[in-house]
C-alpha cells in the first residue's frame, strides 16, 4: 500500500514539471517588459540615461531577470545567414526557469507587479476561502445525490423518477453565472426579496460571539455554495443512478432478494456498497470542475477567493499573480486526484498500478 502511494506521488512529478514549464512559457510571452513594472518612472529626479540603465540593471539582478531564460538556448547563428540552423548553448542551472521553479516549490511565488509585495502574503487567505467553499459544496453534493440517486434507481420508470430526471437535466444545463445573477436579482436586491446579502463573506462586529459569527458567514455563503453545488449535484446523481442500476441487475442482488432480505437492506447494503467504487473516481473529476466553476461564482458574489484574485490580477495586468493561482489550481487538482486514487486503492485492494489505464 505504502509502495503504491509513493509510486503514485512520483507519477505526479513529471506532470507537475510539465505544468510549470507551460506556465513559465506563457509568462515569457506576455506583452511588455516585466522589468518596466518594477522600475519607477520618476520624472522629478533628473536622471541621466546611463543612471537609469544602471538602476534597471540592479533591479534586474535582484529579480533574476539578467539570467538566461532556460537550461539551454538556441541562438541564431551569426556566421551564416540562414536562421534555419540554430546554435545550441548550454546555460547550466543558473537560469530563470530553475530559479522560479525552485523558489515556487520552496513557497516563494515571486513579487506582484501591482504592489510589488510577495505574492505569498496575498494568497493564503483566498486559498482558505476557495477550499472551504469547494469542500463544503462537494460534501453537500455527495450527501444529497447519493440517497437521491439510489432512490430514483429503485423507482425506475415511475413518474417521480422521470420528473427528477428532467429536473436534473435542466439543472445540468443552467450556466452557473446565470443562476448566480438570477439569485442576486431576485433574492438579494431591494426590488424583490432581500433575503440574502448580495456579496461578501461576513458583516459581523468584532466582538460577536462565535455562533453568531458562524451564522453570519453561513448566511453570506449560502447562495454561492448553492451555485457551486448544484452542477456537481446533478452530475453525481446521474452517475449514482447509472451505477446503481448496473449493480441492481447483478446476480448477488437477486440472491439477496430471494434470501428474503428486506428491500431497504438489499438496496442500501448490497446495492449501494458495490456501486460506491465509481463514485470515488468521480471525485477526481468533480473536484477540479468545482474549482473551475467556483472561479466565476467568487467573482459574482465578491468572495475573496482564488478565482476573484486571479481575475483581479488579470485586470490589473498582474501576471505573476495569475500564474501563481493557475499553478495552485493545478496542485489542488493533482492532490485531489491523488486522494481519490489512494481511497480507491484502500477500498478495492485489487487495484494495482499496472492495471490502471488512466
Amino acid at each position, binding site marked *: 500500500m505504502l509502495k503504491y502511494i509513493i509510486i503514485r506521488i512520483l507519477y505526479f512529478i*513529471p*506532470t507537475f514539471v*510539465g*505544468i510549470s514549464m*507551460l*506556465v513559465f512559457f*506563457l*509568462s515569457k*510571452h*506576455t*506583452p*511588455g517588459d516585466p522589468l518596466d513594472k518594477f522600475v519607477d518612472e520618476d520624472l522629478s529626479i533628473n536622471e541621466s540615461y546611463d543612471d537609469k540603465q544602471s538602476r534597471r540593471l540592479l533591479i534586474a539582478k535582484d529579480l533574476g531577470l539578467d539570467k538566461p531564460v532556460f537550461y539551454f*538556448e*538556441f541562438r*541564431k547563428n551569426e556566421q551564416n545567414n540562414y*536562421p534555419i540552423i*540554430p546554435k*545550441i548553448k548550454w546555460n547550466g542551472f543558473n537560469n530563470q526557469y530553475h530559479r522560479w521553479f525552485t523558489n515556487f516549490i520552496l513557497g516563494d511565488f515571486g513579487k506582484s507587479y501591482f504592489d510589488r509585495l510577495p505574492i505569498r502574503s496575498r494568497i493564503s487567505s483566498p486559498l482558505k476561502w476557495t477550499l472551504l467553499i469547494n469542500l463544503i459544496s462537494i460534501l453537500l453534493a455527495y450527501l444529497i445525490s447519493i440517497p437521491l440517486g439510489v432512490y430514483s434507481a429503485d423507482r425506475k420508470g415511475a413518474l417521480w423518477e422521470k420528473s427528477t430526471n*428532467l429536473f436534473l*437535466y*435542466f439543472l*445540468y*444545463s*443552467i*450556466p452557473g*453565472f*446565470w443562476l448566480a*445573477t*438570477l439569485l*442576486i*436579482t*431576485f433574492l*438579494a436586491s*431591494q*426590488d*424583490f426579496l432581500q433575503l440574502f446579502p*448580495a456579496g461578501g463573506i461576513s458583516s459581523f462586529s468584532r466582538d460577536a460571539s462565535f455562533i453568531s459569527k458562524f451564522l453570519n458567514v453561513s448566511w453570506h455563503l449560502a447562495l454561492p455554495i448553492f451555485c457551486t453545488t448544484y452542477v456537481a449535484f446533478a452530475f453525481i446523481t446521474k452517475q449514482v443512478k447509472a451505477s446503481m442500476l448496473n449493480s441492481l441487475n447483478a446476480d448477488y442482488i437477486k440472491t439477496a432478494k430471494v434470501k428474503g432480505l428486506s428491500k431497504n437492506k438489499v438496496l442500501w447494503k448490497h446495492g449501494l456498497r458495490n456501486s460506491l467504487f465509481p463514485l470515488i473516481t468521480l471525485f477526481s473529476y468533480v473536484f*477540479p*470542475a468545482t*474549482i*473551475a*466553476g467556483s*472561479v*466565476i461564482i467568487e*467573482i459574482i458574489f465578491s468572495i475573496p477567493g*482564488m*478565482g476573484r484574485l*486571479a*481575475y483581479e490580477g*488579470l485586470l490589473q495586468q498582474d*501576471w505573476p499573480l*495569475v*500564474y501563481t*493561482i*493557475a499553478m495552485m*489550481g*493545478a496542485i*489542488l*487538482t*493533482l492532490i485531489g486526484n491523488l486522494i481519490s486514487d489512494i481511497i480507491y486503492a484502500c477500498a478495492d485492494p485489487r487495484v494495482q498500478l499496472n492495471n490502471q489505464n488512466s
Partner: protein
Amino acid sequence: MQSSGNNLIKKLSQTRSGRFAFFIIGLFLFFFVFADFIANEKPIYAKHEGQSYYPIFNAYANGLGLSQIKHPAPNKDWNEITFEKSIWPLLPYSGITIDLKNNYKGPFEAKVKTNRFGRHPLGTGQLGKDVASGIIHGTRVALIVGLMAMLLAAIIGLFFGSIAGYFGDQSFKLGPFGILFSCLSLLYLIYWSYISFGGNEIKNAGDILRNILALLGIPTLFLFAGHQIDGLFGFRKKFYLPLDLIIMRIIEVMEAIPGLLLLFALLTIINRPSMLSLILIIALVKWPAIAKFVRAEMLRIRGLLFIESSKAIGNPSWKSLFVHALPNAMRPVVITLAFGVASAILLEASLSFLALGVSEEIMTWGKLLSNARQKPSAWWLAVFPGLAIFLCVFAFNKIGDVLDGK
C-alpha cells in the same frame, strides 16, 4: 454522413424535448443568418428624394469590397431621416445602437418614443441598448465561437487521440534515424518558437495559428524524413516511441489546471481578444477531452478484425489508421463534439460576462447578462440573455444525449 444526419433528425423528433432542442437550434441558426434583417438600425429598403437605398445589402457589398457606402445624409443617422417609402427590420436597433432616452427600461415600462425608437419588447440595458436585438445579434458570436472552437479542438484531438490510441506505447517502431529525428524535431520546435517570437510578444491571432500549424507540422516532417532515411539505408525498426505515454502526459498537464484558470493564464499573452483568438484559446483548452475519447475508442478498434486485415494486406500504418480506423471512431467524437459545443458556448459567454471576451463592438449574450450586475433591479437583463445561453446549451446537450442513445 447523410444517413447519420437524417438519423439524428429522426431520433430528435421522437421525443418532446428532442423536438424542442431541434426547434431551438433552428431558431438560433435563423437568427445567426438573418440577424441583420431582423434587428438593424438601417432600413432594408428606403426611398429618399427619388433615390432608392438598400443599406443592409450595401453594407454587405462594402464589406466584400464591391461598392461604396451610400448614405442620403451622411451626418445623420438612418433613424433621423424621413423617407418617402421605407421597409424597416422588425427591430430598428443592431444590438449596440444607443437609445439614450430609454436607459434601463423594463419590458412593461413606458418608453420615450423618438422617431422609430422606443419599442423595446424585452427592455433595454445600459445606454438604452435593446435586449431583444442584442440577443439576436449575440447568436453570431456564440455560434461562431462555439462551433469553430470545437471544430479546431476536434481536429487537434482527433490527431493526437488517434495516434495515441492506435499505436499505444509499443507499436510505433522507429529505426535509429527515426529516433534521432524525433529528438531533433523536439529541439527544433523549441528553436522555432525562439526565432518566431524570441522576446517578441504575440501580436495577433495569425501568429498563434502559425504556432499551432508548426506544432503539428514540424514533428510530422521530421518523422517522415527520419523514416525515409531509415528506409534508404535499410535499418531495422527496433526502437519504440511511447506515443501514448507522451500524449497522455501532455493531456494530463493541460487538464490539471482548472478550466477558467487555464483560460486566464492563456489570456495573459493576448492584448485584446478578438473572435479568432478566443476560438484558438477555447480550442486549446478543449482538445484534451476529445483526444481522450478518441484514444479510448481507438484502443477498442485497433484490436478488431478489419484493422488486422488492413495490416495483413500490407497497408501502411497511416492508411490503416486514418482511412480504416478513424472513420469508425467518429461516433463518440460526434457525441463529445455536441457536448463540447455547449461547453464552448458557455465558456465564451462566461468570458464576455467577465468583460474578457471579444473586445470589438459586437453584442454578446455574456455582455448583456453582465449588465445585470451593474443594475441588479433590472430583472429583464438577468432573465432574457441568460435564458438564451441556457436554451442554446440545453439544445446542444440534448443533441449529444440523443446521439448517445439515451
